[in-house]
């Protein structure tokens, strides 16, 4: 199609929307609702995955040694553990360090009480390794291995917080895909109705165009443009709303739930929207295109 014809078809497409305001508006609103939910779930799932990754980084298994174990034996154990593939790094905490940490944490302001222990270390025999994992899902395997080692009295690990979190993320993913699929269907149905009305309003004009010798493409292009513009507006609105709301929502959650003491638990809006904006726009335009395409296939035949 020629450039000048494209211009003409664009103009006609915009006119269609204007003439057909009510239905165009309804279509834009449903697409906007669909994309809004999509964007919201997208942000939630992305954040869950981010937290999951953060948790994995901090996930560690602590092992305490049997009483009377020698320093050489501890070093040897450390070497055995370090060579395992799922282990990222190993940190040794001596009994004295453990006591210092404990005092700092629990006797703050009651130093006198702590001093009453004198030079006795109540945590004698509490030296430990903290083992950081490369891959949280290998935790159980490692724990079984550690329990089987000689010289280890106790293995401490936080049971599968990480696994629970990833389960939640997956669940949210499924629920959101279902809802979005339903809304997607409704949106396409509404766009299709809008275009059908546009076609019937312009029936006479279309008949004359065909009589004069317009190509199919030329007859259809204005309606495709109409669908695409509806899709574009319908996706731009919710993305803009989400963009301006995102930081506020994160702040609110961080302040409300102490579990997420700081906003560093969340992705920045840049990290979300550099993916969300193109994905949402393509989705909206795609819905508009498909909605008008299927209608035209049915209704605009020469």
């Amino acid at each position, binding site marked *: *199609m020629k450039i000048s014809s494209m211009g003409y078809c664009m103009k006609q497409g915009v006119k269609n929307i204007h003439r057909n305001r009510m239905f165009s508006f309804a279509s834009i609103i449903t697409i906007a609702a669909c994309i809004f939910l999509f964007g919201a779930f997208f942000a939630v799932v992305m954040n869950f995955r981010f937290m999951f990754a953060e948790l994995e980084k901090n996930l560690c298994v602590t092992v305490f040694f049997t009483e009377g174990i020698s320093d050489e034996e501890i070093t040897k154990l450390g070497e055995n553990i370090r060579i395992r593939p799922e282990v990222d790094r190993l940190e040794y905490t001596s009994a004295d360090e453990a006591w210092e940490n404990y005092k700092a944490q629990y006797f703050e302001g009651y130093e006198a009480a702590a001093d009453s222990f004198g030079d006795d270390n109540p945590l004698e025999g509490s030296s430990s390794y903290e083992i950081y994992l490369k891959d949280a899902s290998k935790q159980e395997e490692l724990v079984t291995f550690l329990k089987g080692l000689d010289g280890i009295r106790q293995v401490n690990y936080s049971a599968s917080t990480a696994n629970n979190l990833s389960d939640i993320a997956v669940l949210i993913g499924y629920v959101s895909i279902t809802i979005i699929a339903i809304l997607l269907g409704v949106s396409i149905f509404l766009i299709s109705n809008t275009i059908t009305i546009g076609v019937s309003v312009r029936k006479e004009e279309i*008949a*004359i165009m*065909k009589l*004069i010798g*317009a190509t*199919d493409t030329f007859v259809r292009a204005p309606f495709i443009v109409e669908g695409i513009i509806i899709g574009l507006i319908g996706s731009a609105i919710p993305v803009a709303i989400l963009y301006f709301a995102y930081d506020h929502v994160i702040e609110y959650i961080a302040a409300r739930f102490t579990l997420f003491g700081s906003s560093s638990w969340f992705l920045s809006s840049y990290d979300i929207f550099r993916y969300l904006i193109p994905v949402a726009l393509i989705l909206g335009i795609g819905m508009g295109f498909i909605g008008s395409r299927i209608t035209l296939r049915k209704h605009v035949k020469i």
Partner: protein
Amino acid sequence: MIILENVSKKYSSGNPALENINLHIEKGEFVFIVGTSGSGKSTLIRLLMKELEPTSGKIYVNQRFLNKIRRSKLCNLRRDIGAVFQDFRLLEDRSVYDNIAFAMKVVEAPTKKIRPQVLSMLSMVGLLDKYGKFPKELSGGEQQRVAIARALVNNPAILLCDEPTGNLDPENSWEIMKILEEANNRGTTVVVVTHNIEIVEAMKKRTVTINNGTIISDVKAGGGVIYEN
């Protein structure tokens, strides 16, 4: 230019609208088609534009074999043909100028050519001063002249008119016929379906009479119309 060989058309209901039609129209001819109401004249015109498919027989228009034209190539046939109807079929929401320019935009004519070509058509049908008016602001005769200008603006090889003067008084009818004759003089093949026997008698053109779906007479220089309306 137009060839029909043993063409029949039967609508799903009832008797055949056309039966075993054989007709040759040469390039540059001016042909009247007359006949009683319901005799099949409009059916014939619609077959030539491939708005309808013949039930049997072959149709050629401007060297195109209509039976074999695919839907996607139909626009090429339509560009060879200008069509004019009793009810004008103008777009009410557009000015005279835009109605005619529309026909050029639709076939993606070069933008630069549109304005001079539309103005030349308007001057041919004598409506240069009305170019900004809307169809509702024009008389029936003027509206039909706009429709003719639109049909001719892309220089079609053939002009098909189905009762172009059906809604017009004698004076306007004559003006329309003069314009059609003018187009014919410029080389366009013209086929006119009409009930206006007076005009047919006066213009002395080839006249084909259809009755009950068959051609009952084909007279070279008009005048010899034998049917009662």
